[in-house]
């Protein structure tokens, strides 16, 4: 039964996952970008900045796409709307994470 502001209980969990997934993908992507830049640009110089940039450029499109898939979710309930917006905000934030590499390259 659907009550006011509600979704059927069997739909709740998948939608909740759709709200959280994009944000978690953003977190993983951020950690990866930070790690890659730190590995390339700190004193140890673990990897070449070129490879760090390449890594970021390679992982960003799939990460952003994976985050945005939730935006395809239909439905007018608040929770479904939350899933769409979480996807949109997170996908944008993933692109922002990659912006430095696109704009500057190397270690700046």
């Amino acid at each position, binding site marked *: 039964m659907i009550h006011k502001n509600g979704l059927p209980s069997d739909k709740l969990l998948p939608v909740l996952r759709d709200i959280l997934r994009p*944000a978690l993908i953003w977190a993983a992507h951020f950690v990866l970008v930070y790690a890659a830049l730190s590995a390339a640009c700190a004193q140890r110089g673990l990897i070449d900045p070129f490879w760090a940039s390449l890594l970021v450029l390679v992982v960003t499109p799939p990460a952003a796409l994976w985050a945005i898939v939730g935006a395809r979710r239909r439905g007018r309930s608040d929770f479904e709307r939350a899933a769409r917006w979480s996807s949109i905000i997170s996908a944008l934030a993933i692109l922002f994470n990659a912006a430095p590499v696109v704009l500057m390259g190397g270690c700046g």
Partner: protein
Amino acid sequence: MTDTSASDRPVQGPVLHDEMPEFEAAWATPPGWRILSSVSHRVVGQRFIVTGLVFFLIAGFLALLVRTQLIVPNNTFLDAETYNQVFTMHGTLMMFLFAIPILEGFAVYLLPLMLGARDLIFPRMGAFGYWCYLFGGIIVLSSFLFDAAPDGGWFMYTPLSTSQYTPGLSADFWLIGITFAEIASVTAAVEIIAAVLCTRAPGMSLTRMPIFAWYMLVTAFMIAIGFPPLIIGSILLEIERVAGLPFFDVTAGGDPLLWQHLFWLFGHPEVYIIFLPAAGMVATMLPTFVGKPLFGYGFAVAAVVTMGFISFGLWAHHMFATGLPTISLTLFSAASTMVAIPTGVQIFSFIFTLAQGRPRLTVPMLFILGFLFIFVIGGLTGVMLASVPFNWQAHDSYFVVAHLHYVLIGGMVFPLVGAFYYWSPHFTGRMMSERLGRWAFWLMFTGFHITFFLMHLTGLRGMPRRVATYPEGLGWDRLNLLSTLGSYILAAGVLVFVWDFLRHRMSGPLAPRDPWGAGTLEWLYPPIAPGHNFHAIPRVHSREPLWDQPELLREHAHLAEGVLRGASHGMRETVGCHPVTGEPLQIVRLPKPTWVPLWAAATIAVAAVATLASAYVIAGAALVAMLVCFALWAWEPSQTGETVDTGPEGVLPVNVADRLGHTHIATIGTLLVLAALYGSLLFSVLYLWNVHPDFTTIAGLADPLWAAVAGGLALVLIASSKVAAHKGPRLGLDVPVLLSAVATGAGLFVAMLQIDPRDTAVAATLWVMAGFVGVMLFVMAFWSLFLAVRKLFGQVAPHHRVPDLNRGSFGLATGVMVLIAVVVLLAPHIEGLS
């Protein structure tokens, strides 16, 4: 029966002594001084709120001293040293002892009432947290008495705060007192997570949850992950001060910037941790005054969740002037700009809610409008500061002081005062004054802008923050004079509010039932609601049950239909729900008043003070006493396996042994905190290893054989604790867990012996990492011993699986931490081989 509305003095109730004697007796608050043993969320929440308010007034007084010193150039009202102490204590008290605890106090008080629970799910933990907060706060404040008030700024940067540049005890007061007080925040976080997920009224699925609960849930997760870096940083710095290990000493491969990373990994999310609960209050109050539900609940949920994540990616924007690589600056600048989007979504959700109707301009509503106006300006200057070139210009200037107060006072103090006006009928049964409230608002609003708007200009004209005085003729004189006068007006507004708060307890008009016409469940009873919150917990069908289920307000609250009406066995209990659907899952039995939380916190306080006094034997003895307290705490009859007839929802089991049970969810919450602590240590190791490559192997390498042995034993630990969790309580299964925990710890210790922690920062940090794992193993061993003794004494029936289930998850996490430590210790060997 006593009824509030019938008398001219507010009375808590109704208390149905005749109809439900055992039930009412079970929930009675202990009289007289024994109220200190109360663990009720209503009592504990009010304690947090009142204590937080007292710290706010002290910190506000210190702010006035700062402003008075700066009123004219070359002023000698305070000497430079005192000035440093005063602004440091102002920032410290405001951030650590006022803002977070008072908001947590509101959450502790309101959440069960809003969610349809009779108490918070771990009442003793709430009480314990409060005592830790109080004792920690007293330790920090008492530094004034010893003329040792901290003076290194609220972020205690190294190397200034190391013993070389800050001898004496002042930094130790800060590090030990604040870390102690933070226990309160972290325990409250775990408790809020479990309470929101596990104790909601029947039918309250996640999508029907009051928006405040969403804000608090996200905030609690943020505290669980955000506070650990500072706890670790403080522990490292205190060890450096006491034992001389060189974590932040550049000559031994340490790095002062490590402190900044750890501090701001906490410090930036902290700003959102302060903002989100306040915004949650706004999102709760606003619909009441507009008479319409919050516009875009879904938008708000998405914004809060994403903000919770993204706010962790901004920490280094406080470090733009430290010489980080330009590419990192750009990364953090981009993330800082990005966070404006979820923030903006929330603000638009509020604005559209306003636009849906004609808001009633009550005092709380005025404060909400003040919040919107001030916070938006603070957000805009925040976006300005996120731009690196502008940041370099404005760094450490009064522009930053202006920005941070726009965000903190606008984003938190204004909603908070509004919340006092809105919810104080709950505390006192009376209404605060609309007239005095308007005075308070206009004085605060005007005073605030005069004080802080002008500081933008003072900053742009080049005045640095944290200066005790300034020469005349630099264009700062008049601005400072006006800022100081503004701060007096602001303080007058605060005093009017405080006066009204004190006055209304005696002479405010009696509050009627649901005085503002709100839709959320906390207004079901006429203020002051009875101590158990609900005689029967109603099933809810919407987010605003009082609007959508008129039958709830049509009859007396205590007659409302619901589950668990009364309890003839005289025990405290509430309904436990499925975390997602909100459908009843179990009955949660709750503890009665007890002194144990107070004792446990007192033992830690003794340990803290003894450490300050370098009386380490006493500190050790106090920690042993603490273990005894925790054992007493946990020594209670298990009730798993019993059932309760709830009435409309049928028969439910008590304290289920299930992954979705409340104790298991709390265990996972605790593990989240522990994982964040451990993650902060790993970050520290990797950071030092990465930025000071020359120092990484000087102090020696771990013994690879023993490290591998420890890894193998960790696998045994994981397996044995999982088997025990699976098979249920058997004495024979505790022994392997106990032995493998001890043996793993021993193996790790021997492996570490070849590394000298005094030689380099990496080596010292590796020791702390191993020490942390050692503490986890000690907890596993102690827990297993405790469970074994309980079984020996016949305290555990065969179906009492809950503790073993929880220990299974804890054992898995501990084992994984050991394995990670082993990989870190073996990595240099593998690198050497290659």
